[in-house]
């Protein structure tokens, strides 16, 4: 508990900095802290029950997926069908990876594996979706004249938008690429730390962490790519034209 209080004090210091810098994100900061505390408290209470029943853990994963979709959808405001795009992108990234990991026997289909692995992969897909979607939304809305110049040369909207997607996808993947490149050198990621604290051997922890990182690369690439294409398409109206 002392560690939580100390970390909260650090958060208060961060809040002070946002205030001094006039970032105007204090309320979002406080909401994030309160939400994290409440959500984790609830999880701590229900997790024991959920860990005993595979069906309940499946339900728990669905709740995680819904929450991730809503969060990504909100971050993509200004994009038509943002919630749907968020949900499909997160699903496109996380579902195949989860099916592969559990279907091919990478992990046993038990709640103690299903919940943390799903959480990490769904969370990663959400981050990539949000980053890619926002970058591409901003890119397209700031370059409408250029895109219309392309359309005016008689190319399809899909072709015209092609140039604007790679930078958005790449931008979304920078965090996971950096995390994967620097793991062990600069950062000790959550799964690794959690397992060590839980008493697992460093080798076991490293194996799980590698699985998570490699899976995240695939999950985030897929989620960002699907999101990029769908966000791009959301700005195209009938007749191959831009609709803002």
């Amino acid at each position, binding site marked *: 508990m002392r560690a939580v209080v100390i970390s909260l004090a650090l958060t208060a210091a961060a809040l002070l900095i946002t205030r001094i810098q006039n970032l105007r994100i204090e309320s979002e900061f406080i909401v994030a802290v309160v939400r994290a505390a409440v959500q984790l408290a609830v999880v701590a209470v229900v997790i024991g029950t959920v860990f005993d029943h595979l069906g309940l853990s499946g339900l728990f994963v669905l709740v995680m997926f819904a929450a991730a979709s809503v969060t990504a959808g909100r971050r993509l405001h200004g994009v038509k069908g943002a919630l749907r795009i968020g949900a499909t992108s997160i699903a496109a990234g996380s579902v195949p990876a989860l099916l592969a990991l559990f279907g091919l026997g990478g992990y046993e289909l038990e709640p103690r594996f299903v919940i943390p692995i799903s959480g990490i992969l769904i969370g990663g897909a959400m981050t990539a979706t949000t980053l890619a979607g926002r970058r591409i939304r901003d890119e397209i809305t700031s370059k409408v*004249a250029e895109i*219309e110049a*392309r*359309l*005016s*040369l008689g190319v399809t909207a899909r072709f015209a938008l092609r140039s604007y997607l790679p930078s958005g996808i790449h931008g979304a993947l920078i965090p996971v690429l950096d995390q994967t490149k620097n793991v062990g050198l600069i950062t000790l990621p959550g799964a690794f730390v959690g397992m060590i604290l839980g008493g697992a051997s460093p080798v076991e922890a490293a194996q799980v962490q590698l699985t998570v990182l490699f899976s995240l690369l695939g999950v985030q690439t897929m989620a960002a790519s699907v999101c990029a294409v769908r966000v791009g398409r959301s700005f195209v109206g009938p007749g*191959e*034209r831009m609709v803002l």
Partner: protein
Amino acid sequence: MAEGVCLERGGRRVLKDVSTAIERAQVTAVVGPSGSGKSSLLRCFNRLEEPQEGRVLLAGEDTRQIAPVELRRRVGLIAQMPTIFPGGVRANLAYGLDDPEDFDLRTTLESVGLPGHFLERPSDALSGGEAQRLCIARALVRSPEVLLLDEPTASLDRDAVRTIERLIWDLAGRGLTIVIVTHDLGQAGRITSHVKLMVDGRLTAEGDVGDVELAWPKEQR
């Protein structure tokens, strides 16, 4: 040709029952105060905007029956600001072409008064006037029947303006139908005797520059 074209955008009627015929192989200038709907009318001609009412005809055919990709190759549009894509001059000219080697890019470049060796130049090494001529050449590669020019000289210096005006005149002489939107009545007069005046979303007068000048609303002169 436009027949009863009405366009609404953001709850505002931008074009109100616009009907007009455009002369083939001539330059037609659409003039009028800012915000009168001139650019919107051009955008209806190549379906960057879809009118809620009325229709646009190209050589007698309803443009809604023509695939947008095909229509836009037949009806090129040049915007006010020269929009050059990343890459060199050659890449710009070849943009979107299935088989660029089937097209004589050098001749097209020379047809707008740029030297053939510019093909190998990076496009960011061009002046404003050269960039606008490249944009025109990029549309010409597709052998359009109609060229729509939306204030094509608004961002250029005086010498570049004159060069583009001569080019427009020259292109019409080669049989291209040209519609130019400009707020500059003097420019319209230098290029053509077919001028249409647009005020508050309606075509209110047409004729030569003198006719249109008389009809220009006094409060917006």
